[in-house]
């Protein structure tokens, strides 16, 4: 049986798949291409870096841009100015109008710098970008980013690449409760159940990279993440039973 779900709308873009997948750190570009396929993702993230002189091979040889929407990130930026610069360059390739805005605070934690993230969001929104903004799981910061015009707010489950899953479900719940734009849990996902938990909480989607790319079998893990995302979404839409302290029998009382 097929269940109809509404599409995920981010700015003027619409998606069926709620799993966004990164393209970094795979054992090979071929495995990446197979993993993207297995994940069912429609949106894939990329980073912006110097092109190599006299080298024609490109990541984009392995990504069918008719099938996948490219979401460039501003990874590696530690100030609003740097991130805005990278976003402008990314847009100028003509391959994407969306930007995954990431302004980091320091290299050890890779946690976002909330002040510069907000600053960069304001600038990029004014310049017409569809901004998907990476942030911590702080509900107040998330609200401020939404108010600044972000098309999507993406709180971290836990630090980037840490595989710790969703450390503070309550914060994610608070963010979800007041959000008027889609919330996508981004970063920290280690395994399939982490994706399911994010989706069961009511997130509109999950974005991950390392959890797939560094798994022993990235292609199989990509499929696991796809199923986990769909499971979590279905469970969320179905409305789970409340948790109870004591048991409640499933069978009628014995009457003979």
């Amino acid at each position: 049986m097929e269940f109809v779900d509404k599409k995920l709308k981010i700015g003027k873009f619409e998606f069926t798949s709620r799993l966004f997948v990164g393209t970094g750190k795979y054992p090979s570009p071929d495995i990446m291409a197979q993993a993207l396929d297995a994940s069912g993702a429609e949106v894939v993230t990329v980073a912006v870096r110097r092109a190599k002189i006299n080298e024609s091979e490109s990541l984009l040889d392995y990504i069918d841009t008719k099938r996948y929407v490219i979401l460039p990130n501003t990874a590696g930026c530690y100030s609003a100015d740097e991130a805005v610069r990278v976003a402008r360059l990314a847009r100028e390739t003509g391959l994407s109008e969306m930007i995954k805005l990431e302004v980091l605070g320091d290299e050890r934690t890779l946690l976002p710098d909330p002040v510069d993230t907000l600053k960069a969001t304001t600038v990029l929104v004014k310049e017409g970008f569809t901004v998907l903004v990476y942030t911590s799981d702080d509900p107040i910061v998330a609200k401020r980013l939404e108010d600044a015009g972000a098309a999507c707010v993406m709180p971290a489950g836990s630090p980037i690449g840490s595989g710790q899953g969703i450390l503070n479900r309550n914060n994610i719940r608070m963010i979800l409760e007041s959000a008027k734009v889609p919330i996508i849990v981004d970063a920290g996902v280690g395994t399939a159940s982490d994706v399911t938990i994010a989706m069961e909480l009511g997130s509109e989607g999950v974005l991950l990279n390392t959890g797939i790319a560094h798994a022993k079998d990235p292609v199989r893990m990509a499929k696991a993440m796809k199923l986990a995302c769909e499971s979590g979404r279905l469970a969320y839409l179905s409305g789970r039973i409340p948790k109870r302290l004591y048991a409640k029998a499933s069978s009628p009382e014995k009457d003979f």
Partner: protein
Amino acid sequence: MRITLNGETKECPTGITIDKLLELYNFDKYRTAVELNSHVIPRKEHSYQIVKDTDVLEVVTFVGGG
């Protein structure tokens, strides 16, 4: 004349346009973006924007990332 291209010093013909420069160094113009002296240059201007001596160019593309 001498320019700085992606951090490397390069000799290139005087009066070269950005378009020609991208060709010279085998960049794919449909997969790159260009910054000239810290200003992003829209692709439609590449055919007539001239690169001058001591100019600093950055040519970027997409690589794997999360």
